[in-house]
């Protein structure tokens, strides 16, 4: 496989070009299909395969920026953007990204960056996996049709009016209060909005993720945006914070442009396939597989951390196989289902 090795001058390492394209492709398919960026696989994967942590984060952010342009084109050209909210999101996200990246540079100088970011990833990936499994096994069955006896019980009880989380947050009156007419929000504390976008920006700068998997639910459930506007505003936020993250990490000399280009190539094709697959593949079961895949990615980071502590090479090999194996397997399942569906559709139309 050495013939596929290329020199990455900025990161100062040799890297397999096929691996870069495969990582990008898998992340593109998964991100496009599940609606979350999927970039949180890239930083751990690059780190496991030999990138220093700060280079892994910077390169990931550069490829996120390129990919966000593909996503923006796909999602109706940001047609549903609350520009007032968007402006606040950009300012807060940019400050968050810069804060995150500055902490990375400080940690790099103290020599702790790899370990701290890996632990952050372990917490993030395993929490996300547990939440998705909880959603699949506990929340979803309870949302489905209640049985006859349950229906009778419910009809006897007086119905409690549900208060949405966003409505509770509207009651926090810390001035200045702002309104977002496009999103139908009459009054919310500016600090709450700033905090949400700052936090997601910080995560982006600190871990090299897009932050959409937190920003989207936060826009809908905490700020109370309609879904369509949340998607548009989130896309705009990712686009600007991605561009900023790419720029500031490149300024710090931590973007390996060649690796980012190869990953973008794979991710662009993968993202298109992933988004297209949404229209063809039905069923909630695939979400369980995704949750398991995230858990495997989290375990891979744990094993990599063990390798860094013990220096036994076999741990690093296992971590690499686990993270890339889980991603490839999940991608293969989606692609196989997609091509089968397309074939079936074509044969029916004949």
């Amino acid at each position, binding site marked *: 496989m050495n013939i596929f090795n290329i*020199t990455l*001058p*900025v990161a*100062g390492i040799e890297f397999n070009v096929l691996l870069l394209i495969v990582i990008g492709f898998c992340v593109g398919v998964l991100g496009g299909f599940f609606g979350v960026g999927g970039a949180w696989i890239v930083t751990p994967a690059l780190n496991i395969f030999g990138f220093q942590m700060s280079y892994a984060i910077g390169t990931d952010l*550069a*490829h996120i*920026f*390129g*990919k*966000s*342009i*593909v996503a923006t*084109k*796909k*999602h*109706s*050209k940001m047609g549903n*953007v609350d*520009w007032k909210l*968007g*402006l606040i999101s*950009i*300012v807060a996200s*940019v400050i968050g990204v*810069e804060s995150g*990246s*500055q902490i990375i*540079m400080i940690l790099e*100088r103290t020599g702790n960056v790899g370990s701290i970011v890996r632990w952050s990833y372990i917490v993030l990936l395993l929490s996300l996996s547990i939440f998705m499994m909880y959603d699949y096994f506990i929340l979803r069955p309870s949302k489905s049709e209640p049985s006859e006896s349950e229906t009778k019980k419910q009809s006897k009880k007086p119905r409690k009016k549900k208060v949405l989380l966003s409505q509770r947050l509207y009651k926090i009156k810390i001035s200045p209060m702002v309104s977002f007419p496009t999103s139908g929000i009459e009054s919310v504390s500016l600090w709450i909005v700033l905090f949400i976008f700052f936090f997601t920006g910080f995560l982006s700068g600190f871990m090299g993720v897009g932050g959409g998997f937190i920003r989207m639910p936060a826009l809908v459930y905490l700020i109370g945006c*309609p*879904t*369509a506007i949340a*998607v*548009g505003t989130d896309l705009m936020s990712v686009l*600007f914070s991605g*561009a*900023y993250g*790419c*720029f500031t990490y*490149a*300024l*710090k*000399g*931590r*973007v390996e*442009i*060649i690796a*980012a280009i190869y990953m*973008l*190539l794979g991710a*662009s*094709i993968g*993202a*298109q396939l992933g*988004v*297209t697959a*949404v*229209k063809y593949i039905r069923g909630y079961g695939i979400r369980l597989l995704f949750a398991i895949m995230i858990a495997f990615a989290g375990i891979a980071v744990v094993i990599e951390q063990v390798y860094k502590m013990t220096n036994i090479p076999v741990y690093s090999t296992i971590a690499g196989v686990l993270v890339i194996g889980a991603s490839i397997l999940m991608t293969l399942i989606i692609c196989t289902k997609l091509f089968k569906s*397309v074939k079936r559709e*074509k044969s029916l139309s004949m």
Partner: protein
Amino acid sequence: MSTKKILALLLFCFLFACAYGNAYAGEGAGGKQETAISKKIDTKNLSGVNLLIADLYNNDRMLYAVVVTLVMAVLGSIMAFGTDLVLKHFGMSVSKISHSE
């Protein structure tokens, strides 16, 4: 949103990065330790595109950052259109996604 506002936002991002992007970059432990901005790539064994990138990286970090950002933006746009065309060729539906409540 007008083009002026978008340009103003981009200008804000650029100025913010210039002001704070290198806040710690120039400071080492007593100025001796290699820091982000002072890091140089060894160009001895490099040639072609790698040498070009390394020279840009070593000589003008600001220009390197601008080039990286522009390259990713341009390639992202090209690939977004290119992959659409390829998938259409294979008979897949590549229409835009619409969102509803």
